[in-house]
């Protein structure tokens, strides 16, 4: 219940935060929403000597447009994604899916950046970011670089974010007209992590699928992009056979950890069902 003692730093700028990360090194952890890190510290599973609180850095918050991209500050909290008019208009999946994350109070603190950077395969934004073809903007002592979502998730709790870097923003191309989208998340109760989740973004023309991105939550050591499942749909009409084929291809790449939510068979089967539900829901939204 009680975290171990630590030193607390509240930088006001990204550069200041990067400076602190550099000088404090591996003894320091970044504090974003805190709803992953603080519980771990209260249970004494994590015992950092220093916390660098990102919550006072204004430049890390906010959602704006830049060219054809929507740019989301990494410290934007889930509830601000849900309520954001720009996001609703341009990338509605990211305005709707966060309703399935945690609960109302947690969503006032939990951030999209924290959800992504933690590298936890149970988090929802990794699969969502794969489905929307997001690019992450990372900043470190040597400057800024961009990494595509599909290159970012390396292993459980391991991402392409270097130890001296901070995730500053998420760039998402605005949906083209007629894009359908959905996120289906099977969970034991409201606020739980996914037993299995599937994010789908797709477009259709003349009755055939012209664009499909399918990503899976919590059925492998990282979020997965289900390319074979996408290929089962591309150029095809949507019917039971093609949807089943996509689900089967998605199941084939699942490698879930067994826990109280289910064994490998259950989680894999559920991933298939979430893919089917998400495809159908996304198709219904395709213009």
């Amino acid at each position, binding site marked *: 219940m009680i975290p171990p003692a*630590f030193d607390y730093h509240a930088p006001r700028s990204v550069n200041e935060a990067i400076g602190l990360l550099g000088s404090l090194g591996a003894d320091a952890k970044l504090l974003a929403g805190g709803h992953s890190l603080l*519980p771990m510290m*209260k249970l004494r599973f994590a015992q950092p000597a220093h916390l660098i609180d990102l919550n006072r850095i204004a430049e890390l918050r906010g959602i704006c447009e830049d060219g054809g991209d929507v740019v989301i500050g990494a410290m934007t909290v889930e509830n601000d994604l849900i309520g954001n008019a720009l996001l609703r208009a341009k990338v509605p999946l990211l305005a709707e899916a966060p309703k399935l994350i945690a609960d109302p*109070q*947690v969503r006032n603190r939990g951030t999209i950046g924290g959800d992504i950077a933690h590298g936890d395969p149970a988090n929802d934004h990794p699969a969502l970011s794969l489905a929307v073809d997001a690019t992450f903007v990372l900043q470190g002592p040597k400057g800024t670089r961009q990494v595509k979502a599909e290159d970012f998730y390396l292993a459980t709790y391991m991402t392409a974010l270097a130890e001296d870097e901070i995730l500053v923003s998420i760039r998402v191309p605005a949906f083209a007209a007629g894009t359908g989208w959905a996120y289906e998340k099977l969970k034991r109760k*409201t*606020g739980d992590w996914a037993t299995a989740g599937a994010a789908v973004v797709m477009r259709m023309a003349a009755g055939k699928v012209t664009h499909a991105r399918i990503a899976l939550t919590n059925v492998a050591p990282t979020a997965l992009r289900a390319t074979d499942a996408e290929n089962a749909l591309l150029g095809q009409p949507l019917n039971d056979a093609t949807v089943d084929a996509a689900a089967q291809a998605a199941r084939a790449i699942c490698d879930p950890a067994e826990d109280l939510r289910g064994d490998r068979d259950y989680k894999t089967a559920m991933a298939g069902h979430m893919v089917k539900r998400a495809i159908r829901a996304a198709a219904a939204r395709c213009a």
Partner: protein
Amino acid sequence: MPKKIINVTVNGRAHEEAVEPRTLLVHFLREQLNLTGAHIGCETSHCGACTVDIDGKSVKSCTHLAVQCDGSEVLTVEGLASLSKEAGVLHAVQEGFYKEHGLQCGFCTPGMLVRSYRLLIDNPNPSEDEIRAGISGNLCRCTGYQNIVKAIQYAANKLQQAQKVTA
């Protein structure tokens, strides 16, 4: 680890206090300010018994450091009645929980009240489903939530009536 000085307004009153960086907001409120309304029911941020209102948002005070509240305004259950323009009058959510039997042991009640207060500001006329989703971060073991829903509906009606009168 050296203590930090924080300036925080709680229920309208300014406080300057020294805290350890690791001091949880819920302990700061309960132990240093003697505001024991917010309760602790778990250590994994699930139960919501510790819910307070920080700068206009519902937050679980067990997953928030006191140092993070420097410069903030915090509302706890003890401050709800003082929001009324009249002295000694309870807030509509408090009246609703009383009238609709929305509490039994009372342990989840402060968190439920402070959460309901904000829920109704954000969504003054919620459907039953919206209410249930709105309080999904607050666990109760006694009531089965059914009367809590009625309590919040009571408060919503009362607040809307008051709006009509002042409009």
